[in-house]
């Protein structure tokens, strides 16, 4: 436990480096191409259009009969946070390896490399979110104060993401193909998470998977609060928070136990 406080203290001490690193990621993106941030928006937009066509027009997945929500919006509310999760995790898992020249030369808290990657992905996410906002206004989707639930749900998602990222970043430094394994895991994970289909379409006996899968809890909660206009399922969210905290704790412990030999493994 005291390790965690020491780490938080040293991250605060090195906060300028953290923001410089975030700035590096963000600035480099829009400098690399003329279109820059356009890609951040175009990517999910294209994904949504293709998926909407496949699942709503061809496969005709019903969203929710009661509230007349178009599939594209239903999908987008789940897809954006999912993309954030998946992008954060795959970039963070490569973050230590790609900064190997720094790791072997200079001392600074290594968690900063993982944290800055995740924060940079949140910036991307906020840009993509503007599309959803425009969409929701165009389709006159009603919202109410329950939408504020999005903030704690988002925090739970980030706790979970950070925990897994610390684990994968540290293990990817030891076996460089872990990131390929991770992309396989993420592909499968998308299908056991109700992103492209509504959770209530799944037979009762399989729903236990959703209970144990924090990403399912999180995506469901986003939909309930943004599109349903009601509060999230408290008990599920509570379990989701618990699982996320345990993930962060274990991920951090693993990262710390490996940190001393990071430079040896490069």
């Amino acid at each position: 436990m005291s390790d965690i406080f020491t780490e938080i203290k040293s991250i605060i001490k090195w906060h300028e480096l953290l923001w410089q690193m975030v700035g590096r990621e963000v600035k480099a993106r829009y400098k690399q191409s003329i279109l820059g941030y356009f890609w951040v928006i175009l990517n999910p937009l294209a994904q949504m259009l293709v998926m909407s066509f496949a699942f709503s027009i061809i496969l005709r997945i019903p969203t929710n009969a009661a509230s007349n929500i178009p599939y594209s919006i239903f999908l987008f509310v789940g897809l954006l946070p999912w993309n954030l999760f998946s992008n954060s995790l795959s970039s963070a898992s490569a973050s230590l390896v790609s900064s190997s020249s720094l790791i072997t030369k200079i001392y600074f808290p290594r968690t900063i490399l993982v944290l800055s990657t995740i924060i940079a992905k949140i910036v991307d996410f906020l840009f993509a979110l503007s599309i959803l906002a425009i969409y929701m206004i165009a389709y006159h989707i009603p919202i109410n104060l329950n939408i504020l639930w999005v903030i704690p749900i988002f925090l739970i998602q980030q706790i979970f993401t950070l925990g897994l990222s610390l684990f994968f970043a540290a293990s990817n430094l030891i076996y460089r193909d872990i990131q390929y394994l991770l992309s396989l895991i993420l592909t499968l994970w998308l299908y056991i998470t109700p992103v492209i289909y509504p959770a209530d379409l799944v037979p009762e006996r399989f729903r236990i998977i959703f209970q144990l899968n924090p990403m399912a809890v999180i995506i469901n909660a986003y939909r309930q609060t943004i599109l349903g206009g009601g509060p999230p399922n408290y008990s599920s969210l509570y379990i989701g928070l618990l699982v996320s905290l345990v993930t962060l704790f274990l991920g951090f412990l693993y990262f710390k136990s490996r940190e001393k030999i990071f430079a040896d493994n490069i």
Partner: protein
Amino acid sequence: MPTISKTMEKPIIEFQNVTKEFSMNSQKTFKEFLPALFRGEKTVNRFTALKDINFKVKRGETLGIIGPNGSGKSTILKLVAKVMSPTNGKVTVRGKVSPLIELGAGFHSELSGRENIYLNGAILGLKRKEIDKNFKSIVDFAELWDFVDQPVKHYSTGMYMRLGFAIAVHVNPEILIIDEILAVGDTKFQEKCFKRMEEFKKQGVTILFVSHDIKQITKFCTKVIYIRESNLAAIGNPKKISQFYLNDQENK
């Protein structure tokens, strides 16, 4: 007041029975690791980079480290910089360390020189205000006046190196680590770097200097250690140790 004088005498760097072993994975990928585990093959490869090393560096000394490639010189620097920890023994460092990082480590090629100065400064532990204060001096030292707002991907190797060196010498370190970086760059800039290092020496900065250039070592250092096959072969007067090193290498 004996206590005060005693603390004053404490060496700034102290290696006590330091051994560094690397336990490298024999398999670089998980794909190779799993079958090896099932077959019961060795998954970890051990090798000793440093063996029972003892030495002290006093504040203000310039320590030269010589030895053939792969003898463990860089491992010593990494232990001082705290990027590695010893397997056995104890490394004590009593001061702020500034490594002269290798060409462009931490630079982002898409970003301008200006942005990279701030980024690299932060990596070296500088506050934003400190960089603001030193910005002009860094640019002057690197001689990059017209290029500071260009992306560093358009820089020549020499410009890259100059910028890296310029930032590192503005950190105000207590211990400066120089790992053969001066082998690159034109003679004029090399001279400038040495002049700067002489200034550091006068200010009482402790310098660790790895080089294959025996002339530089004897001219610049106050003490030299010779590392041979992971062991400390000799320590002492630069001229004596350098001569011993040259003879030793010839006799091989």
